[in-house]
């Protein structure tokens, strides 16, 4: 008896260093706004996406570090040669957080709901290559084939964003397969996520993941307060830091500041080229001129913007694909140089003349226009102020107007009552097909001149052709050629004047272990089930 007790005690002592999850370990960080929905099929905003990432179980997951797809709820998959169908072999003995068994029926149910045209889900629209219905074929309990109405480029990678919901659970979409489930939701204040007791994943030593017991997401709009809370130890991470906050953090607590390298996001400015826009005709003529846009591009000092606004944590941008996207970026292209003299030469070719420090067009109109941007974004306000000074050097008067976001959206999508707009592109997807609705001239997000009945210019017609071409083939080489050519055209014609690509900056507390911030979202907690806190020790195998 004594011997057994000794053995037990010894065993406990041996097991202790493996670091059983400390009861009550809680990871805390902030969301910028209240999630608009907890239904994973309707996610359209950042905050909802965060909750979906932490609670949703997906068939495969894009490893944010290696950028390779890894099996999750699907142990294997095969995409048909035509890209129209995909067959999954599902993991067995998996249950939802409420105990409901997971099966192929749930996958079929999720995809049918997602593809329902009445739902208008951004996730569902990504699969919609053409008219028609999704067909599902279930063989056995754990094998399913999904056949789409039209070929979908990059089909497998899209499933990284599809959280499977239960077809049978009484909790409906609140029953989850991910590492956490939503335990508490105080609207506007915080969300509390607790570990999913039925989470299927275990580490190599057999311990159930996640290591951290709960996650508390506080709703905090003010970035300065969020930074303060990190330095005080009230939260453990900031997923996306702006450059100014990063520098403050680096000065105060350098071990917390992490630069994950160049990201996918960019800042750009474009001119309103909508024919029916309520702006003067002579200004429409300016904005429609390629030389005018090229001149503006050369007159703006991208290097200064990267250095002053982003404190060196940005690089002059080239085109719509970031250099961080190693597979798709066209390496032959370089950022446009800062060349005010070159800009003036281009403008002169278009009939503009510099008179007493003011640039005038052929008809004598002084070149003056406004640029709108969203108020409260300090980075963009500074960029606009810098552009103002740069353009002044070539005799152009730029008026900076900051508007609240809904007013700005109304102007650029409904009334088209604006001249130029400075906004950023937030890009989560590596595959250029995700930007189809930006580059097709008939699309609503073809920002400078949306919803065209026929392409207004030859180069837009060429982009239409190339984008459709790359969407209709699974041959990577052909796709790459087409996408490279689109980048080239955009670089030449500059419908968007790309300014900078920002670096992915994050703040991580020393008490958070196993964090390896990357450029792809979610930058810090992409491996949430492997993160540990304090003295917790994870299995590193």
């Amino acid at each position, binding site marked *: 008896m004594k011997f057994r007790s000794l053995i037990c005690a010894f065993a406990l002592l041996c097991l202790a260093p493996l670091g059983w999850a400390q009861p009550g370990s809680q990871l805390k960080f902030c969301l910028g706004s209240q999630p608009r929905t907890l239904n994973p099929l309707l996610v359209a905003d950042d905050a909802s996406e965060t909750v979906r990432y932490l609670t949703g179980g997906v068939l495969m997951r894009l490893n944010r570090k290696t950028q390779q797809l890894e099996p999750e709820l699907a142990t294997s998959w095969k995409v048909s040669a035509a890209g129209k169908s995909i067959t999954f072999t599902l993991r067995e003995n998996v249950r939802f957080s409420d105990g409901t068994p997971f099966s192929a029926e749930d996958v079929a149910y999720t995809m049918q709901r997602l593809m329902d045209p009445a739902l208008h889900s951004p996730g569902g629209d990504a699969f919609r290559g053409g008219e028609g219905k999704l067909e599902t074929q279930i063989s056995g309990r754990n094998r399913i084939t999904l056949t789409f109405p039209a070929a979908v480029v990059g089909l497998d990678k899209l499933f990284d964003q599809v959280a499977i919901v239960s077809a049978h659970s009484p909790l409906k979409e609140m029953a989850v397969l991910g590492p956490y489930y939503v335990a508490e939701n105080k609207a506007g204040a915080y969300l509390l996520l607790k570990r999913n007791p039925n989470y299927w994943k275990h580490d190599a030593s057999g311990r159930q993941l996640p290591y951290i017991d709960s996650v508390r997401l506080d709703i905090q709009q003010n970035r300065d307060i969020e930074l303060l809370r990190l330095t005080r130890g009230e939260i453990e991470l900031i997923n996306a830091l702006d450059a100014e906050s990063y520098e403050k953090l680096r000065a105060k607590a350098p071990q917390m500041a992490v630069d994950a390298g160049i990201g996918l996001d960019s800042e750009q400015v474009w001119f309103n080229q909508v024919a029916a826009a309520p702006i003067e005709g002579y200004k429409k003529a300016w904005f429609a001129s390629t030389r005018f846009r090229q001149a503006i591009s050369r007159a703006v000092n991208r290097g200064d913007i990267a250095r002053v606004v982003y404190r060196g944590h940005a690089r002059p941008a080239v085109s719509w694909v970031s250099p961080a996207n190693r597979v798709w970026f066209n390496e032959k292209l370089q950022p446009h140089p800062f060349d005010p003299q070159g800009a003036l030469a281009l403008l002169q070719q278009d009939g503009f003349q510099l008179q007493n420090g003011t640039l005038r067009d052929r008809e004598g109109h002084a070149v003056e226009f406004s640029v709108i941007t969203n108020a409260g974004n300090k980075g963009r306000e500074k960029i606009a102020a810098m552009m103002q000074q740069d353009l002044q050097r070539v005799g152009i008067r730029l008026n900076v107007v900051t508007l609240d976001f809904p007013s700005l*959206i109304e102007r650029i999508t*409904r009334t088209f009552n604006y001249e130029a707009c400075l906004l950023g592109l937030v890009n989560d997807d590596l595959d250029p097909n995700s930007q189809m609705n930006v580059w097709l001239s008939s699309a609503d997000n073809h920002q400078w001149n949306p919803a065209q009945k026929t392409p207004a210019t030859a180069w837009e017609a060429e982009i239409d052709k190339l984008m459709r071409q790359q969407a209709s083939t699974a041959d990577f080489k052909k796709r790459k050629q087409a996408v490279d050519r689109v980048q080239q055209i955009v670089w030449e014609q500059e419908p968007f004047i790309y300014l900078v690509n920002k670096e992915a900056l994050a703040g991580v507390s020393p008490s958070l272990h196993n964090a390896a911030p990357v450029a792809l979202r979610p930058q810090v907690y992409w491996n949430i089930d492997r993160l540990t806190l304090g003295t917790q020790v994870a299995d590193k195998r």
Partner: protein
Amino acid sequence: MSALRRLGQHGLRIAVVLLAGGLLSSMLVRTAPGFGVDEQDLDSRLTAESHRALHGAQATEGGFLRFYVEWCGRALHGDLGTSIALNEPVRQLLAERMPETAKTLGAGLGLAWMLGLGLALLSSVPAMRGVGWAAWFVASALLCVPAAVLAILFVLAAAPGRLAVGLIVFPKVFEFTRNLLGHSADLPHVLAARARGVGECRVLFRHVLPVTAAQILALAGVSVCMGLAACIPVEVLCDLPGIGQLAWKAALGRDLPLLVMLTMLVTLATLAANGAAEALAGNLRGGEAR
């Protein structure tokens, strides 16, 4: 009977003002630019059909008058609508958050009046001129500090954010009461009292304050509105889940059902506070006449 009639008149007045407030706010929100647009308009993953469906859903709401009439009809049955920004019933949101704002307002106004009136009273005593100058300078300084900065300072100092509301309202209370007390101190009856050797405290409480009571009470009513306005930046920055934080989110999100209800609440609070001030002032006048 006449008391009942007066009560009825007040009730009617409150109801009319409330309804007018709701109508006016729904008009302001509904006609302002940016209403009915969504950040999803910029989501390039959505197809053209989805965008059109989004626009269509927003367009079916109709004009502000129709919305308001329908909303009033539902409100009579206890349905205050659902918040667009937070996707929760408005009634539930308000029930959760009103106590928080009530605490913030109570603490803030308590501090503001304690400091404001107290220091104003001290300033009017000739022997305490130094205190008066110091208080005046601090009040002037606080007036010039942005509310957001004050709130941030409280967060930095890990002090209760509620008290920031007090420091925002205090300078206004102090400035008004100091001026009123200072002017009243020069009135003939006060000078006469001093000439007869009446002590300063007695002069202050028996001769100065009663004359200014009506205006001070009116200021008290107005200070409730000042406090509510101050709650917005303080609750947003100090993470206090009250109505101020809700109002800010609602304004940015053009959340019509929530904004109409919040406006009516603020109007009700303003009417109640000002009405109580008037009633007290009326009682004081009645007491004096006797």
